[in-house]
């Protein structure tokens, strides 16, 4: 009790009540993105892909890291967004911003409808159901050749300049800035959700779903809302990559994409908002480097890298940083 008396309640609670305020380190990803634009002008196309994929991983983090929904089918929403934006642009509507909005709505709708059915289950059953949803959409895209181009991919996208002024250039400058801006909006949205009472209740669901029911939380509804928002964000990510690459292939809906984004998030650290930034950047740069150095066996090196992460960096890079910080604090 003595400790409690020394700390008057407001002072003691201030830190807790101010968690949502921006801290200095949160500017770091954006400063680095800005610096990369000037330092690596030849890699802006890759940079744009990384920025768009970070949004995908961030959307996954919202359901996996916060709500504790394990999924291996997040590509369903990424692909829905990519095909929506792609089909629009291939059929005479290449305005990119409205393309993103429609893609988000389509992916969000798929998330809502599938989530309403599959979120009744948990654990392995749920994992299988997420796989099935993605597999069904993949087969749909494969068979609907006339609309999607099937196995050949969607050709003939014509994406108009952003705001009618900024044309997508060969060097990827426009794409890079476009993706960075959209990612920033997505990040602000996810960040505010995470620190909102809704986001805290998602964390509660992850930590102890039984108790969440017992404190009167409408758990199913909460999960569905989170799943729908996450799906919409994943759809925007897919649309960004479709618009900047001017192509959509079946891979956008594939299991490999669902798995890869999961791996990227795990490398960075799950449930910590910035794991997506770190994991995607590391993975995609490593992929780019390894495939240049060793075009035949590059996947082997990725695999070896993954094994090291799992053995030495449980909790991802962010977990590693956290442990190092604790070590440094201990002696003092």
């Amino acid at each position, binding site marked *: 009790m003595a400790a409690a008396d020394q700390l008057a309640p407001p002072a003691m609670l201030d830190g807790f009540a101010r968690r949502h305020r921006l801290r200095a380190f949160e500017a770091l990803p954006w400063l680095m993105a800005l610096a990369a634009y000037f330092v690596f002008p030849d890699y802006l196309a890759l940079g744009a892909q990384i920025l768009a994929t970070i949004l995908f991983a961030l959307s996954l983090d919202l359901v996996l890291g916060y709500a504790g929904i394990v999924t291996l089918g997040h590509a369903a929403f990424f692909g829905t967004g990519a095909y929506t934006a792609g089909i629009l642009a291939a059929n005479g509507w290449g305005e990119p911003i409205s393309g993103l909005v429609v893609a988000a709505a389509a992916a969000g709708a798929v998330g809502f409808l599938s989530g309403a059915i599959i979120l009744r289950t948990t654990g392995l059953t749920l994992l299988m159901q997420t796989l099935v949803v993605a597999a069904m959409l993949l087969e749909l895209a494969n068979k609907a050749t006339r609309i999607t181009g099937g196995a050949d991919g969607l050709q003939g996208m014509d994406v108009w300049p952003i705001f009618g002024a900024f044309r997508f250039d060969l060097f990827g400058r426009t794409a890079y800035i476009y993706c960075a801006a959209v990612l920033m909006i997505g990040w602000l949205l996810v960040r505010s959700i995470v620190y909102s009472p809704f986001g805290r209740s998602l964390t509660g669901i992850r930590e102890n779903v039984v108790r969440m029911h017992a404190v009167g*939380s409408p758990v199913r509804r909460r999960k569905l809302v989170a799943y729908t928002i996450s799906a919409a964000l994943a759809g925007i990510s897919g649309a960004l990559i479709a618009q900047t690459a001017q192509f959509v292939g079946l891979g956008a809906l594939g299991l490999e994409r669902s798995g890869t984004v999961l791996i990227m998030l795990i490398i960075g650290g799950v449930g910590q908002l910035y794991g997506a930034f770190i994991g995607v950047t590391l993975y995609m740069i490593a992929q780019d480097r390894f495939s240049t150095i060793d075009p035949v066996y590059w996947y082997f090196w990725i695999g070896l890298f993954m094994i090291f992460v799992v053995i030495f960096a449980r909790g991802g890079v962010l977990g590693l940083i956290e442990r190092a910080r604790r070590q440094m604090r201990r002696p003092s």
Partner: protein
Amino acid sequence: MTQAGLETQGLCKSFGALPVASDINFRLESGARHALIGPNGAGKTSFVNLVTGMLKPSAGRILLSGEDITHLPQAARVKRGLVRTFQISALFRRLSLIENVTLAISEREGAAGDLIRPAGRYRKLIEEGYALLEALGLAADALRPVNELAYGRQRLADIAVSLGLKPKVLLLDEPAAGVPSGETGAIIDMIERLPADIAFLIIEHDMELVFRLANRITVLVQGSILVEGAPQDIAADAQVRQVYLGERRPR
């Protein structure tokens, strides 16, 4: 007769061939201090699970303040003031104590659906949580993750989370289970000091604790009520001694 805080009529449930509740007619008067005892496997926790909606009864009715809640989902029952604690601490283990309590309070106040405004801006709810912890002597640990607390403190925290929901009827499922004997005192004190407008039903094995806290006792054996009455009557009941109290003092 006055309206019961909680009432079950002909409540039945079985897992396959094993009946865990057969025709339970039970009344918890408002403001009651009531204990539910019985040997292991008598169906005490199942009764709590049925009443709170974790399990669906195969027959019978459940009434809360006279309202039929048999088919309401769990969350709706909590909103009406029917709250439980858990036999094995069910806390948000990696979250701080203040956050555990605030989560419950946010749900009660309907703030938890807000997606935009930061949780920290709901200052009143946080301060209410803190005041609750202070009243229960837990304030010093407010900022610590609950999995770092001693188990006795975790049991108190479990009750604190439930009290954050402002219950009318509180079901305490073995609140002192697994706690070293030196730490049970704080838990008993907390239960003794519960406001008079909260009716509680306590499931407990420790007879000393039961006789100290409850002014009415129901004995459950194999899913049905064996006998119910005042503590001294239960202690003197030959049947109870045989099936339950007798277990500890074999002749």
